[in-house]
Protein backbone atom coordinates (compact mmCIF):
# COMPACT_ATOMS: atom_id res chain seq x y z
CA UNK A 1 0.00 0.00 0.00
CA UNK A 2 1.44 3.36 -1.00
CA UNK A 3 1.90 6.21 1.46
CA UNK A 4 -0.84 8.31 -0.14
CA UNK A 5 -3.26 5.38 -0.05
CA UNK A 6 -2.39 4.65 3.60
CA UNK A 7 -2.88 8.31 4.58
CA UNK A 8 -6.19 8.46 2.73
CA UNK A 9 -7.35 5.26 4.33
CA UNK A 10 -6.30 6.52 7.79
CA UNK A 11 -8.24 9.72 7.19
CA UNK A 12 -11.35 7.69 6.30
CA UNK A 13 -10.93 5.57 9.45
CA UNK A 14 -10.67 8.76 11.55
CA UNK A 15 -13.74 10.22 9.86
CA UNK A 16 -15.65 7.05 10.69
CA UNK A 17 -14.45 7.16 14.33
CA UNK A 18 -15.63 10.76 14.71
CA UNK A 19 -18.95 9.93 13.02
CA UNK A 20 -19.69 6.95 15.27
CA UNK A 21 -18.40 8.72 18.39
CA UNK A 22 -21.20 11.27 18.07
CA UNK A 23 -23.88 9.08 16.48
CA UNK A 24 -23.82 5.88 18.48
CA UNK A 25 -24.87 4.78 21.93
CA UNK A 26 -21.94 4.65 24.36
CA UNK A 27 -20.59 1.09 24.67
CA UNK A 28 -19.90 1.27 28.39
CA UNK A 29 -19.06 -2.39 28.93
CA UNK A 30 -16.66 -2.65 25.98
CA UNK A 31 -15.03 0.69 26.85
CA UNK A 32 -14.50 -0.37 30.49
CA UNK A 33 -13.06 -3.70 29.32
CA UNK A 34 -10.62 -1.89 27.04
CA UNK A 35 -9.70 0.63 29.75
CA UNK A 36 -8.71 -2.29 31.98
CA UNK A 37 -6.73 -3.97 29.18
CA UNK A 38 -4.96 -0.80 28.10
CA UNK A 39 -4.67 1.08 31.38
CA UNK A 40 -4.90 -1.16 34.42
CA UNK A 41 -2.96 -4.04 32.87
CA UNK A 42 -0.13 -1.65 31.92
CA UNK A 43 0.27 -0.27 35.44
CA UNK A 44 2.93 -2.72 36.63
CA UNK A 45 5.23 -2.23 33.68
CA UNK A 46 4.70 1.55 33.73
CA UNK A 47 5.40 1.60 37.50
CA UNK A 48 8.64 -0.35 37.14
CA UNK A 49 9.83 1.72 34.16
CA UNK A 50 9.12 5.10 35.73
CA UNK A 51 10.36 4.23 39.22
CA UNK A 52 13.71 3.00 37.95
CA UNK A 53 13.99 5.88 35.49
CA UNK A 54 13.55 8.31 38.39
CA UNK A 55 16.15 6.39 40.39
CA UNK A 56 18.76 6.36 37.65
CA UNK A 57 18.16 10.05 36.88
CA UNK A 58 18.77 10.98 40.52
CA UNK A 59 21.87 8.80 40.64
CA UNK A 60 23.45 10.21 37.46
CA UNK A 61 22.59 13.83 38.21
CA UNK A 62 23.65 13.53 41.81
CA UNK A 63 26.99 12.12 40.71
CA UNK A 64 27.48 14.86 38.10
CA UNK A 65 26.62 17.58 40.63
CA UNK A 66 29.01 16.08 43.12
CA UNK A 67 31.78 16.07 40.53
CA UNK A 68 31.06 19.67 39.54
CA UNK A 69 30.12 21.33 42.84
CA UNK A 70 31.02 18.76 45.50
CA UNK A 71 27.35 18.82 46.46
CA UNK A 72 24.31 16.98 45.06
CA UNK A 73 22.37 20.17 44.32
CA UNK A 74 18.93 20.58 42.73
CA UNK A 75 18.35 16.83 42.39
CA UNK A 76 14.60 17.20 42.95
CA UNK A 77 14.38 19.96 40.36
CA UNK A 78 16.26 18.05 37.69
CA UNK A 79 14.52 14.72 38.28
CA UNK A 80 11.03 16.27 38.36
CA UNK A 81 11.75 18.52 35.38
CA UNK A 82 12.93 15.58 33.25
CA UNK A 83 10.17 13.27 34.41
CA UNK A 84 7.25 15.70 34.15
CA UNK A 85 8.18 17.26 30.83
CA UNK A 86 9.68 14.36 28.90
CA UNK A 87 10.43 11.00 30.43
CA UNK A 88 7.09 10.46 32.19
CA UNK A 89 4.86 10.94 29.15
CA UNK A 90 7.29 9.58 26.54
CA UNK A 91 8.34 6.44 28.45
CA UNK A 92 4.73 5.72 29.42
CA UNK A 93 3.51 6.06 25.86
CA UNK A 94 6.36 3.98 24.44
CA UNK A 95 5.65 1.24 26.98
CA UNK A 96 1.88 1.35 26.33
CA UNK A 97 2.44 1.40 22.56
CA UNK A 98 4.52 -1.77 22.92
CA UNK A 99 2.17 -3.55 25.28
CA UNK A 100 -1.42 -2.36 24.77
CA UNK A 101 -0.93 -1.22 21.16
CA UNK A 102 0.23 -4.71 20.27
CA UNK A 103 -2.77 -6.24 22.06
CA UNK A 104 -5.21 -4.00 20.18
CA UNK A 105 -3.66 -4.67 16.75
CA UNK A 106 -3.43 -8.41 17.33
CA UNK A 107 -7.01 -8.60 18.59
CA UNK A 108 -8.56 -6.57 15.76
CA UNK A 109 -6.26 -8.24 13.21
CA UNK A 110 -7.34 -11.70 14.35
CA UNK A 111 -10.97 -10.62 14.16
CA UNK A 112 -10.34 -9.38 10.63
CA UNK A 113 -8.75 -12.58 9.31
CA UNK A 114 -11.36 -14.81 10.97
CA UNK A 115 -14.28 -12.79 9.51
CA UNK A 116 -15.42 -11.58 12.95
CA UNK A 117 -15.34 -8.01 11.64
CA UNK A 118 -17.73 -9.02 8.83
CA UNK A 119 -19.88 -10.78 11.43
CA UNK A 120 -20.27 -7.48 13.28
CA UNK A 121 -21.83 -5.91 10.18
CA UNK A 122 -24.25 -8.81 9.81
CA UNK A 123 -25.27 -8.58 13.47
CA UNK A 124 -26.44 -5.00 13.28
CA UNK A 125 -23.43 -3.06 14.41
CA UNK A 126 -20.49 -1.32 12.86
CA UNK A 127 -16.89 -2.34 13.71
CA UNK A 128 -15.91 1.30 14.18
CA UNK A 129 -18.72 1.77 16.68
CA UNK A 130 -18.17 -1.49 18.54
CA UNK A 131 -14.38 -1.87 18.34
CA UNK A 132 -12.68 1.41 17.51
CA UNK A 133 -14.60 4.04 19.48
CA UNK A 134 -14.24 2.17 22.83
CA UNK A 135 -10.51 1.68 22.21
CA UNK A 136 -9.97 5.34 21.29
CA UNK A 137 -11.78 6.42 24.45
CA UNK A 138 -9.83 3.90 26.55
CA UNK A 139 -6.47 5.13 25.18
CA UNK A 140 -7.44 8.82 25.56
CA UNK A 141 -8.57 8.36 29.16
CA UNK A 142 -6.04 5.88 30.53
CA UNK A 143 -2.81 7.20 28.97
CA UNK A 144 -2.96 10.63 30.66
CA UNK A 145 -3.83 8.93 33.97
CA UNK A 146 -0.97 6.46 33.54
CA UNK A 147 1.35 9.39 32.87
CA UNK A 148 0.35 11.07 36.16
CA UNK A 149 0.97 7.74 37.86
CA UNK A 150 4.38 7.44 36.14
CA UNK A 151 5.29 11.05 37.05
CA UNK A 152 4.53 10.37 40.69
CA UNK A 153 6.52 7.12 40.82
CA UNK A 154 9.44 8.58 38.87
CA UNK A 155 9.77 11.43 41.35
CA UNK A 156 9.41 8.95 44.20
CA UNK A 157 12.19 6.79 42.72
CA UNK A 158 14.40 9.86 42.50
CA UNK A 159 13.61 10.73 46.11
CA UNK A 160 14.62 7.24 47.26
CA UNK A 161 18.05 7.48 45.62
CA UNK A 162 18.48 11.11 46.74
CA UNK A 163 17.86 10.07 50.35
CA UNK A 164 19.67 6.73 50.51
CA UNK A 165 22.55 7.20 48.09
CA UNK A 166 23.13 10.95 47.97
CA UNK A 167 22.12 11.96 51.50
CA UNK A 168 19.64 14.60 50.38
CA UNK A 169 16.77 15.12 52.83
CA UNK A 170 13.19 14.68 51.55
CA UNK A 171 12.31 18.27 52.47
CA UNK A 172 15.20 19.64 50.37
CA UNK A 173 14.26 17.35 47.46
CA UNK A 174 10.60 18.44 47.58
CA UNK A 175 11.55 22.07 48.12
CA UNK A 176 13.71 21.94 44.97
CA UNK A 177 10.70 20.70 43.06
CA UNK A 178 8.16 23.23 44.30
CA UNK A 179 10.52 26.22 44.16
CA UNK A 180 11.67 25.81 40.58
CA UNK A 181 8.78 24.06 38.88
CA UNK A 182 5.22 25.18 38.32
CA UNK A 183 2.00 23.68 37.03
CA UNK A 184 2.93 24.46 33.40
CA UNK A 185 5.85 22.05 33.61
CA UNK A 186 3.39 19.33 34.53
CA UNK A 187 0.88 20.45 31.91
CA UNK A 188 3.55 20.38 29.20
CA UNK A 189 3.98 16.62 29.60
CA UNK A 190 0.34 15.94 30.41
CA UNK A 191 -1.01 17.63 27.26
CA UNK A 192 1.38 15.66 25.06
CA UNK A 193 -0.08 12.36 26.22
CA UNK A 194 -3.46 13.15 24.59
CA UNK A 195 -1.73 13.47 21.21
CA UNK A 196 0.28 10.30 21.80
CA UNK A 197 -2.82 8.40 22.92
CA UNK A 198 -4.72 9.45 19.81
CA UNK A 199 -1.82 8.46 17.58
CA UNK A 200 -1.29 5.04 19.25
CA UNK A 201 -5.03 4.28 19.01
CA UNK A 202 -5.06 5.29 15.34
CA UNK A 203 -2.00 3.24 14.38
CA UNK A 204 -3.06 0.15 16.37
CA UNK A 205 -6.65 0.12 15.13
CA UNK A 206 -5.72 0.96 11.55
CA UNK A 207 -3.10 -1.79 11.36
CA UNK A 208 -5.53 -4.27 12.90
CA UNK A 209 -8.31 -3.42 10.47
CA UNK A 210 -5.98 -3.76 7.48
CA UNK A 211 -4.54 -7.12 8.47
CA UNK A 212 -4.44 -9.72 5.75
CA UNK A 213 -2.99 -13.19 5.42
CA UNK A 214 -3.92 -15.27 8.48
CA UNK A 215 -1.70 -15.74 11.53
CA UNK A 216 1.39 -14.53 9.68
CA UNK A 217 -0.44 -11.35 8.72
CA UNK A 218 -1.48 -10.73 12.32
CA UNK A 219 2.14 -11.01 13.45
CA UNK A 220 3.28 -8.67 10.70
CA UNK A 221 0.62 -6.05 11.45
CA UNK A 222 1.35 -6.18 15.17
CA UNK A 223 5.08 -5.66 14.68
CA UNK A 224 4.47 -2.82 12.22
CA UNK A 225 2.00 -1.15 14.58
CA UNK A 226 4.38 -1.29 17.56
CA UNK A 227 7.37 -0.02 15.59
CA UNK A 228 5.36 2.77 13.94
CA UNK A 229 3.79 3.86 17.26
CA UNK A 230 7.10 3.95 19.11
CA UNK A 231 8.88 5.91 16.38
CA UNK A 232 5.94 8.29 16.01
CA UNK A 233 5.85 8.96 19.77
CA UNK A 234 9.45 10.15 19.60
CA UNK A 235 9.01 12.13 16.39
CA UNK A 236 5.78 13.75 17.54
CA UNK A 237 7.35 14.52 20.91
CA UNK A 238 9.74 17.01 19.36
CA UNK A 239 7.11 18.81 17.30
CA UNK A 240 4.48 18.97 20.04
CA UNK A 241 7.11 20.11 22.56
CA UNK A 242 8.22 22.83 20.16
CA UNK A 243 4.60 23.92 19.72
CA UNK A 244 3.92 23.96 23.45
CA UNK A 245 7.12 25.91 24.13
CA UNK A 246 6.07 28.40 21.44
CA UNK A 247 2.72 28.98 23.15
CA UNK A 248 4.40 29.29 26.54
CA UNK A 249 3.52 25.95 28.16
Amino acid at each position, binding site marked *: MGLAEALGSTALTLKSVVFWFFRSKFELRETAKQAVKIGVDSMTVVALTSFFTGMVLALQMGQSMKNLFNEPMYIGTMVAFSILKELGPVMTCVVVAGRAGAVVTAEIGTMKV*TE*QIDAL*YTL*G*TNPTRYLLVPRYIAFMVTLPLLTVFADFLGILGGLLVAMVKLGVSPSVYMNDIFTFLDVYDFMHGFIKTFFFAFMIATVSCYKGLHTEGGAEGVGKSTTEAVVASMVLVLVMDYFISALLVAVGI
Partner: protein
Amino acid sequence: MIEIKKLNKAFGEKVILKDISVEIREGELFSVIGPSGMGKSTFIKCLIRLLNPESGQIIVDGQDIGSTKNEFTLAKVRRSFGYLFQEGALFDSLTVMENVAFGLKYLTDIPKSDYPRIVKEKLALVGLKDVEQLKPSELSVGMKKRVSLARSVAAEPKYMLYDEPTTGLDPVTTGMVKDLILDMREKLKITSIVVTHDLNLALEISSRVAMLNDGEFVEVSEPSKFRQSENKRVKEFMEISHLSRTANGKKDCE
Protein backbone atom coordinates in the same frame (compact mmCIF):
# COMPACT_ATOMS: atom_id res chain seq x y z
CA MET B 1 -37.18 -10.92 -3.02
CA ILE B 2 -33.60 -10.25 -4.04
CA GLU B 3 -32.81 -9.09 -7.57
CA ILE B 4 -29.25 -8.85 -8.76
CA LYS B 5 -28.65 -6.99 -11.98
CA LYS B 6 -25.35 -6.80 -13.86
CA LEU B 7 -23.19 -7.24 -10.75
CA ASN B 8 -19.47 -6.79 -11.33
CA LYS B 9 -16.64 -7.26 -8.89
CA ALA B 10 -12.88 -7.22 -9.37
CA PHE B 11 -9.85 -7.27 -7.10
CA GLY B 12 -7.37 -5.03 -8.89
CA GLU B 13 -6.94 -6.44 -12.38
CA LYS B 14 -8.58 -9.75 -11.49
CA VAL B 15 -12.24 -9.86 -12.47
CA ILE B 16 -14.23 -12.07 -10.07
CA LEU B 17 -17.86 -11.45 -11.04
CA LYS B 18 -18.93 -10.48 -14.57
CA ASP B 19 -22.40 -9.02 -15.17
CA ILE B 20 -24.13 -11.44 -12.79
CA SER B 21 -27.92 -11.18 -12.98
CA VAL B 22 -30.24 -13.40 -11.01
CA GLU B 23 -33.49 -13.24 -9.08
CA ILE B 24 -33.86 -15.03 -5.75
CA ARG B 25 -37.51 -15.72 -4.97
CA GLU B 26 -39.26 -15.61 -1.62
CA GLY B 27 -38.88 -18.81 0.38
CA GLU B 28 -36.58 -20.61 -2.03
CA LEU B 29 -33.28 -22.27 -1.25
CA PHE B 30 -30.85 -21.07 -3.88
CA SER B 31 -27.44 -22.68 -4.06
CA VAL B 32 -24.35 -21.36 -5.79
CA ILE B 33 -21.80 -24.02 -6.60
CA GLY B 34 -18.46 -23.98 -8.33
CA PRO B 35 -14.82 -24.82 -7.82
CA SER B 36 -12.93 -23.09 -4.99
CA GLY B 37 -11.59 -19.63 -5.76
CA MET B 38 -14.25 -18.85 -8.38
CA GLY B 39 -15.86 -16.05 -6.38
CA LYS B 40 -18.74 -17.79 -4.61
CA SER B 41 -18.01 -16.20 -1.24
CA THR B 42 -17.34 -12.90 -2.99
CA PHE B 43 -20.81 -13.17 -4.50
CA ILE B 44 -22.65 -13.46 -1.17
CA LYS B 45 -20.39 -10.89 0.47
CA CYS B 46 -21.34 -8.45 -2.29
CA LEU B 47 -25.02 -9.23 -1.68
CA ILE B 48 -24.94 -7.48 1.69
CA ARG B 49 -22.09 -5.17 0.76
CA LEU B 50 -19.43 -6.70 2.98
CA LEU B 51 -17.55 -6.20 -0.26
CA ASN B 52 -18.30 -3.30 -2.55
CA PRO B 53 -19.13 -4.26 -6.13
CA GLU B 54 -17.65 -2.27 -9.00
CA SER B 55 -21.09 -1.84 -10.53
CA GLY B 56 -24.54 -3.35 -10.64
CA GLN B 57 -27.78 -3.34 -8.70
CA ILE B 58 -28.63 -5.40 -5.63
CA ILE B 59 -32.32 -4.88 -4.97
CA VAL B 60 -33.51 -6.27 -1.65
CA ASP B 61 -37.26 -5.92 -1.10
CA GLY B 62 -37.33 -2.97 -3.50
CA GLN B 63 -34.32 -1.18 -2.00
CA ASP B 64 -31.22 -0.94 -4.21
CA ILE B 65 -28.07 -1.22 -2.08
CA GLY B 66 -25.70 -1.86 -4.98
CA SER B 67 -24.04 1.53 -4.81
CA THR B 68 -25.45 3.26 -1.74
CA LYS B 69 -22.93 4.85 0.59
CA ASN B 70 -25.45 5.50 3.32
CA GLU B 71 -24.38 3.45 6.35
CA PHE B 72 -27.87 3.53 7.82
CA THR B 73 -29.55 2.23 4.64
CA LEU B 74 -27.02 -0.58 4.48
CA ALA B 75 -27.47 -1.40 8.15
CA LYS B 76 -31.25 -1.43 7.71
CA VAL B 77 -31.08 -3.87 4.77
CA ARG B 78 -28.46 -6.06 6.52
CA ARG B 79 -30.92 -6.46 9.40
CA SER B 80 -33.02 -8.77 7.27
CA PHE B 81 -30.05 -11.10 6.65
CA GLY B 82 -28.46 -13.82 8.73
CA TYR B 83 -25.00 -15.00 7.71
CA LEU B 84 -23.32 -18.29 8.51
CA PHE B 85 -19.61 -17.76 8.00
CA GLN B 86 -17.33 -20.49 6.72
CA GLU B 87 -15.36 -20.72 9.98
CA GLY B 88 -18.25 -19.64 12.19
CA ALA B 89 -16.72 -16.22 13.00
CA LEU B 90 -17.79 -16.45 16.64
CA PHE B 91 -16.44 -13.66 18.83
CA ASP B 92 -13.54 -15.23 20.76
CA SER B 93 -13.82 -12.94 23.75
CA LEU B 94 -17.53 -13.66 24.34
CA THR B 95 -19.27 -16.74 25.71
CA VAL B 96 -21.74 -18.76 23.63
CA MET B 97 -24.59 -16.98 25.43
CA GLU B 98 -23.14 -13.53 24.60
CA ASN B 99 -22.43 -14.58 21.01
CA VAL B 100 -25.97 -15.78 20.34
CA ALA B 101 -27.50 -12.80 22.15
CA PHE B 102 -25.29 -10.33 20.25
CA GLY B 103 -27.68 -9.86 17.35
CA LEU B 104 -30.64 -9.55 19.72
CA LYS B 105 -29.01 -6.51 21.31
CA TYR B 106 -28.27 -4.71 18.06
CA LEU B 107 -31.01 -5.97 15.75
CA THR B 108 -34.08 -6.10 17.96
CA ASP B 109 -35.87 -4.26 20.76
CA ILE B 110 -36.33 -7.43 22.79
CA PRO B 111 -35.78 -6.76 26.52
CA LYS B 112 -32.50 -8.05 27.93
CA SER B 113 -34.31 -10.25 30.42
CA ASP B 114 -35.62 -12.39 27.54
CA TYR B 115 -32.17 -13.09 26.08
CA PRO B 116 -31.41 -16.26 28.11
CA ARG B 117 -34.71 -17.85 27.10
CA ILE B 118 -34.27 -17.00 23.40
CA VAL B 119 -30.64 -18.14 23.39
CA LYS B 120 -31.65 -21.47 24.93
CA GLU B 121 -34.41 -21.89 22.32
CA LYS B 122 -32.07 -21.14 19.40
CA LEU B 123 -29.37 -23.41 20.74
CA ALA B 124 -31.95 -26.18 21.13
CA LEU B 125 -32.96 -25.57 17.52
CA VAL B 126 -29.42 -26.47 16.45
CA GLY B 127 -29.23 -29.39 18.86
CA LEU B 128 -27.10 -27.86 21.58
CA LYS B 129 -27.71 -27.48 25.30
CA ASP B 130 -25.71 -26.49 28.39
CA VAL B 131 -23.05 -24.72 26.35
CA GLU B 132 -24.10 -21.15 27.14
CA GLN B 133 -21.16 -20.39 29.40
CA LEU B 134 -18.48 -21.93 27.19
CA LYS B 135 -16.07 -19.85 25.12
CA PRO B 136 -15.71 -20.58 21.36
CA SER B 137 -12.22 -22.00 21.98
CA GLU B 138 -13.84 -24.78 24.05
CA LEU B 139 -16.11 -25.91 21.19
CA SER B 140 -15.48 -28.40 18.38
CA VAL B 141 -15.63 -27.23 14.74
CA GLY B 142 -19.11 -28.67 14.29
CA MET B 143 -20.37 -27.07 17.52
CA LYS B 144 -18.93 -23.72 16.48
CA LYS B 145 -20.82 -23.92 13.22
CA ARG B 146 -24.05 -24.75 15.04
CA VAL B 147 -23.59 -21.93 17.56
CA SER B 148 -22.88 -19.61 14.65
CA LEU B 149 -26.09 -20.76 13.00
CA ALA B 150 -28.02 -20.17 16.23
CA ARG B 151 -26.52 -16.68 16.39
CA SER B 152 -27.45 -15.96 12.77
CA VAL B 153 -31.09 -16.94 13.21
CA ALA B 154 -31.56 -15.53 16.74
CA ALA B 155 -32.97 -12.26 15.42
CA GLU B 156 -35.15 -14.20 12.95
CA PRO B 157 -33.84 -12.88 9.63
CA LYS B 158 -35.88 -12.97 6.45
CA TYR B 159 -32.90 -14.15 4.39
CA MET B 160 -30.12 -16.51 5.35
CA LEU B 161 -26.72 -16.69 3.68
CA TYR B 162 -24.61 -19.82 4.16
CA ASP B 163 -20.94 -19.65 3.19
CA GLU B 164 -19.58 -23.19 2.69
CA PRO B 165 -21.71 -24.59 5.52
CA THR B 166 -20.25 -28.10 5.40
CA THR B 167 -16.59 -27.41 4.67
CA GLY B 168 -14.26 -29.06 7.15
CA LEU B 169 -17.00 -31.13 8.77
CA ASP B 170 -17.16 -34.90 9.17
CA PRO B 171 -19.96 -36.78 7.34
CA VAL B 172 -22.16 -36.99 10.44
CA THR B 173 -21.93 -33.27 11.19
CA THR B 174 -22.37 -32.52 7.48
CA GLY B 175 -25.65 -34.42 7.55
CA MET B 176 -26.67 -32.54 10.67
CA VAL B 177 -25.91 -29.14 9.12
CA LYS B 178 -27.81 -30.14 5.99
CA ASP B 179 -30.86 -31.00 8.09
CA LEU B 180 -30.48 -27.73 9.97
CA ILE B 181 -30.50 -25.71 6.75
CA LEU B 182 -33.69 -27.48 5.65
CA ASP B 183 -35.19 -27.02 9.15
CA MET B 184 -34.46 -23.29 9.12
CA ARG B 185 -36.23 -22.99 5.81
CA GLU B 186 -39.23 -25.04 6.86
CA LYS B 187 -39.64 -23.88 10.46
CA LEU B 188 -38.64 -20.25 10.09
CA LYS B 189 -39.67 -19.76 6.43
CA ILE B 190 -36.32 -18.23 5.64
CA THR B 191 -35.20 -17.59 2.06
CA SER B 192 -31.75 -19.14 1.86
CA ILE B 193 -28.71 -18.73 -0.33
CA VAL B 194 -26.10 -21.44 0.07
CA VAL B 195 -22.63 -21.12 -1.36
CA THR B 196 -20.82 -24.44 -1.54
CA HIS B 197 -18.48 -26.59 -3.58
CA ASP B 198 -20.37 -29.65 -2.31
CA LEU B 199 -22.43 -30.54 -5.36
CA ASN B 200 -24.38 -33.30 -3.60
CA LEU B 201 -25.45 -30.99 -0.80
CA ALA B 202 -26.61 -28.40 -3.34
CA LEU B 203 -28.54 -30.90 -5.43
CA GLU B 204 -30.18 -32.47 -2.37
CA ILE B 205 -31.44 -29.38 -0.60
CA SER B 206 -31.91 -26.65 -3.18
CA SER B 207 -34.90 -25.30 -5.06
CA ARG B 208 -32.49 -24.01 -7.69
CA VAL B 209 -28.79 -24.44 -8.28
CA ALA B 210 -26.50 -21.97 -10.02
CA MET B 211 -23.01 -22.77 -11.17
CA LEU B 212 -20.45 -20.01 -11.01
CA ASN B 213 -17.54 -20.35 -13.39
CA ASP B 214 -15.07 -17.67 -14.52
CA GLY B 215 -17.22 -14.99 -12.91
CA GLU B 216 -20.46 -15.98 -14.64
CA PHE B 217 -23.46 -18.16 -13.87
CA VAL B 218 -23.12 -20.79 -16.58
CA GLU B 219 -26.26 -22.64 -15.46
CA VAL B 220 -29.18 -21.74 -13.22
CA SER B 221 -31.83 -24.42 -12.89
CA GLU B 222 -33.74 -26.79 -10.65
CA PRO B 223 -31.68 -29.75 -9.39
CA SER B 224 -33.39 -32.25 -11.70
CA LYS B 225 -32.64 -30.11 -14.78
CA PHE B 226 -29.18 -29.27 -13.47
CA ARG B 227 -28.27 -32.96 -13.46
CA GLN B 228 -29.25 -33.17 -17.15
CA SER B 229 -27.39 -30.01 -18.12
CA GLU B 230 -25.51 -30.08 -21.42
CA ASN B 231 -23.20 -27.26 -20.34
CA LYS B 232 -19.57 -28.35 -20.62
CA ARG B 233 -18.48 -26.74 -17.33
CA VAL B 234 -21.39 -28.24 -15.42
CA LYS B 235 -20.69 -31.68 -16.84
CA GLU B 236 -17.00 -31.42 -15.94
CA PHE B 237 -17.81 -30.27 -12.41
CA MET B 238 -20.34 -33.08 -11.95
CA GLU B 239 -17.81 -35.64 -13.17
CA ILE B 240 -15.06 -34.35 -10.91
CA SER B 241 -17.44 -34.26 -7.93
CA HIS B 242 -18.58 -37.81 -8.71
CA LEU B 243 -14.98 -39.05 -9.03
CA SER B 244 -13.94 -37.38 -5.80
CA ARG B 245 -16.99 -38.85 -4.02
CA THR B 246 -16.12 -42.31 -5.33
CA ALA B 247 -12.49 -41.89 -4.26
CA ASN B 248 -13.55 -40.73 -0.80
CA GLY B 249 -15.95 -43.66 -0.55
CA LYS B 250 -13.14 -46.10 -1.42
CA LYS B 251 -10.85 -44.45 1.11
CA ASP B 252 -13.55 -44.75 3.76
CA CYS B 253 -13.99 -48.48 2.93
CA GLU B 254 -10.24 -49.08 3.27
